């Protein structure tokens, strides 16, 4: 065997190994230094982070505040909606198909679909799979009865909004829908998928109605979601396993949810139902106000919708169809119409207050009115004229010529001023969303409206003043504004702010006009309705109620000019969209509470024949059934349903 020489050994190896040793020491020293930094110097910060990591809040949803109507009637509350859920992880694997099949037999779900769902959460077997939402009581009981055959099947209940009167008052109450990203950003205490008010008082009073969510503090894993269940009384608790099967425990610090504040409305649901019943089949609106305060007793708009449609997330087709339909529009506050002769009330007040007319002023009505300068003539609605007419007769018989004269004297800017004072052309301030201000024309308005057009188009003409004097010619108001106008007369000259929240303080303006003016106008309006011995009778006679002082003013607002209507022989031949709007505003003076109301029937032809009888029924119903005056129990959904079916 060849002897190979051991190679020369490097002399400095000892030194170099020492260097390696020192390096090793230095590196491990660095580790210790960093450990010290993290564990001792920055300890508090990391402890905080660790705590934040390890404890999660599971939200316990609050239930929405209950909405009451006049007399404490519950209009919207929350019922327990039961959802049947299946937790695959709590069921032995082999039995899952059997359980699915059994569920199909018992509550009629599709076993295949459920099996597919089970497959899809194979990685998170403790996810609560929704089997059926909002099951009926009998189905719920069936599930509980067969509990031993259905391992892993649980019933979870949650509060769900219920509008007890269905479509009645639906537009006022509004509906709920999922919160949108902007709201989520701006509002405190809201989370994804929360339901928030979308219209009506649900929207205006969203914050007080919403309540305060509670929470349960549970262990929080890096992944996996805590599952919320409820016991038999609907009290929520966190399931012992999260979706991935980690075992959880509540770590104390639970805060119970606080339900939303109840909301009390001035709305008389019985009256509302009556109004909606009267409007059935028509397009229109009925507004009934407490004249002294402005409390809204009824605010019906037809056609309407049932907000319960929006409660279930499931039926989305009918929902999307509804959201784009005209049923969503509240005609009482969102649509504008020329007020027609109803505006003569404001004209009379303006004329009397500005001193252009008094109780003795008389104009001759021969059926037409000719402008002094231009020679253009305007017709009165009575072909043969009313003869010599004072302000009281003019209001009672709705003489146009009297108000043409009055209007020309007043001039448009004074008319505009008084209209605004009495609540037209501005939002009334009712606590409902999306109110329309309407239009009261004036010189300024016209110049602004036709900005950029030639001067002759922007100028105001006296002829236009004549049209405005009888509530036509660009004048556009909402039915609610007309009700406020009527309330002004009924309460003796105060403009009220209509409101729905009974706990709000009523607001009213300074007295707008003198008692004398009020007396004169009231007399005119009383004559309009009253059955007088002599001929002719007032235009609103069909609203007359024996033994009650009802005042009122009819209105017939033209949608198109006379020449279009004159083509047709009789009123029935006029196409629907060309027919006049029928108005009637009314007030009751000698009952408590005094009410002021406005009825509008779109294309209803005549205020006197279409709207007046409705007013009579509304007034009679209200004083016979006012829930605040009566000892009898308040309206119930069943009773209202009965009243609605003829």
């Amino acid at each position: 065997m060849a002897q190979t020489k051991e190679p020369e050994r490097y002399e400095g190896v000892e030194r170099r190994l020492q260097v390696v040793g020192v390096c090793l020491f230095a590196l491990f020293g660095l580790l210790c230094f960093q450990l010290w930094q993290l564990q001792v110097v920055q300890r508090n910060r990391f402890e905080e982070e660790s705590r934040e990591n390890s404890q999660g809040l599971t939200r316990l949803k609050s239930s929405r505040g209950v909405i009451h109507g006049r007399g404490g009637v519950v209009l919207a509350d929350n019922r327990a909606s039961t959802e049947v859920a299946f937790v695959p992880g709590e069921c032995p694997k082999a039995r899952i198909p059997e359980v699915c099949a059994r569920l199909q037999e018992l509550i009629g779900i599709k076993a295949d679909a459920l099996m597919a769902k089970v497959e899809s959460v194979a990685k998170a077997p403790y996810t609560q799979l929704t089997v059926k939402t909002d099951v009926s009581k009998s189905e719920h009981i069936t599930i509980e009865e067969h509990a031993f055959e259905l391992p892993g099947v649980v019933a979870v209940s949650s509060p769900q909004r219920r509008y007890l009167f269905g479509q009645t008052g639906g537009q006022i109450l509004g509906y709920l829908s999922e919160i949108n990203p902007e709201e989520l950003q701006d509002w405190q205490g809201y989370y994804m998928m929360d339901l928030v008010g979308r219209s009506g008082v649900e929207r205006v009073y969203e914050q007080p109605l919403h309540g305060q969510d509670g929470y349960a503090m549970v262990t929080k894993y890096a992944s996996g979601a805590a599952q919320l269940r409820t016991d038999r009384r609907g009290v929520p608790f966190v399931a012992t396993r999260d979706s991935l099967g980690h075992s959880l425990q509540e770590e104390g610090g639970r805060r119970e949810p606080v339900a939303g504040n109840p909301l009390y409305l001035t709305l008389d649901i019985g009256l509302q139902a009556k109004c909606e019943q009267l409007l059935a089949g028509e397009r229109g609106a009925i507004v009934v106000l407490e004249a002294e305060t402005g409390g809204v007793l009824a605010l019906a708009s037809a056609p309407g919708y049932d907000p319960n449609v929006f409660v279930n997330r499931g039926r989305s087709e009918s929902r999307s169809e509804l959201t784009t339909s005209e049923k969503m529009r509240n005609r009482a506050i969102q649509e504008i119409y020329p007020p027609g002769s109803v505006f003569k009330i404001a004209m009379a007040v303006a004329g009397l207050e500005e001193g252009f007319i008094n109780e003795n002023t008389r104009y001759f009505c021969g059926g037409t009115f000719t402008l002094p300068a231009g020679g253009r003539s305007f017709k009165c609605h009575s072909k043969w004229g009313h003869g010599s007419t004072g302000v009281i007769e003019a209001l009672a018989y709705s003489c146009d010529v009297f108000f043409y004269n009055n209007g020309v004297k007043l001039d448009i800017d004074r008319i505009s001023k008084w209209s605004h004072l009495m609540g037209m052309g501005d939002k009334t301030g009712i606590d409902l969303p999306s109110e329309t201000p309407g239009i009261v024309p004036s010189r300024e308005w016209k110049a602004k409206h036709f900005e950029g057009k030639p001067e002759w188009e922007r100028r105001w003409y006296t002829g236009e003043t004549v049209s405005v004097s009888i509530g036509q010619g660009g004048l556009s108001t909402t039915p609610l504004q007309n009700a406020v106008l009527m309330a002004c007369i009924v309460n003796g000259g105060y403009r009220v702010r209509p409101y729905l929240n009974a706990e709000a303080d009523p607001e009213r303006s300074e007295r707008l006009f003198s008692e004398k003016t009020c007396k004169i106008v009231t007399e005119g309006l009383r004559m309009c309705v009253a059955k007088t011995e002599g001929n002719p009778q007032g235009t609103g006679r069909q609203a007359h109620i024996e033994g009650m002082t009802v005042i009122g003013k009819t209105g017939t607002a033209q949608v198109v000019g006379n020449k279009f209507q004159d083509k047709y022989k009789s009123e029935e031949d006029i196409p629907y969209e060309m027919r006049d709007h029928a108005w009637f505003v009314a007030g009751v003076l000698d009952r408590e509470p005094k009410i002021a109301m406005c009825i509008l029937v779109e294309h209803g032809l005549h205020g006197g024949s279409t709207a007046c009888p409705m007013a009579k029924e509304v007034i009679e119903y209200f004083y016979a059934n006012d829930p605040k005056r009566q000892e009898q129990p308040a309206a119930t959904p069943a009773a209202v349903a009965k009243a609605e079916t003829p």
Partner: protein
Amino acid sequence: MALTTTSFDVHDTTLRAFNIRNLKRIDWLMPILVLCLAAIGWATLYSASNTSNPLFFKRQILFFCAGLFVALIIICVDYRLFVSLAPLMYAVVVLMLVGVLFAGEERKGSERWLNLGLFSVQPSEFSKLALIYMLAWYLGGLGNRIRKLHWFLLTFVIAGIPMVLILKQPNLGTALTLAPVVVIMLFAAGCRVWHMAALLIAAISIVPFVWFEMKGFEPSPPEYVAANYYGKLKIRDALREQHEANRKPYDLHWHQKMRIYGYLHPESDKKESGWQTYQSMIAVGSGGLSGKGFLNSTQTRLKYLPEYHTDFIFSLLAEERGFIGAAMVIALFTAFLLRGLSFALDCPDMTGTLLAVGVVTILGFHVFINMGITVGLLPVTGIPLPFLSYGGSFYSTTMVCVGILMNIPMRRKMFVY
């Protein structure tokens, strides 16, 4: 080292591979340290597996027993036998590394395993030991000739072949662990300092390259931050595909850039690349001075820490045992490594010295890198912690290393015969 070397034939050792008398010279401090570390490892793993799978703990004990068996064999057989077989081992490992590139199966993204029918092996794990043996054989045989540049450079050719093959897998972590082994073994073997300095400067010059590569790398554009979970996944996928499509051969891969990015911005994007580092820092930091107590960790129990059985087990230990426990483990490792280094110092045989230095380096490097990652000093790369991390292959590698180390002082008296 005043020992006079008698003539010694490396190839002669085959006859005296096993000598029962050598066992009398066994070093007793080393096994005690090993047992201490192993016991701490079991306790930590018990805690880790307590909330996940108790099998981890039981298996780890089995791995230790298997490793102990292998270590005992290594202790009994003269290390020079293995050193003489180094070229063969090296060749086999290189062949396996080539094979794994073509027929390997991927596990956990980047590690490649070779299926040998009965069992799967991870050739990159073997390459660590094979390279140490190979370098010990090469440098030990070379002696002072290492001061010549070409011999010096040849070392890098030897080390470079497996490293490039491992990088190809791609397994950056393992390839990186081989680098310090080469450097330290060369240094101990007595290479010229300026050779080494030039090399290190060349290595440091990679930094501007990396900086250049990372310039303009932005995995979290505004639309990404604004997107929801699934949107995020989509945007990241699109960005990655775009990056990989435009990548030139010398460019870094997307996932490598992501790791560097995560290291540079550990808190900027807590849920993403820096997530692991940051969660590990929370775990370590929240442990405080004395820790949360045995089985009381929250960061790991609630699965905020990924891989807490393996790469992040030190975070668990630091969380439950606090600074005191963690520093104690560091002290134990330091003692263990320094003891190994002292064997190298005392060994009269250059091959043995180099072998010991290589083994100490690779274990020390694992310990430092792993702990450095868990305390947020270094970017995340999958490197296990000896004795503590769960895993059969690496545990046996570790025990083989222990066997090699203990074998070295046992032989030293041989020369005085």
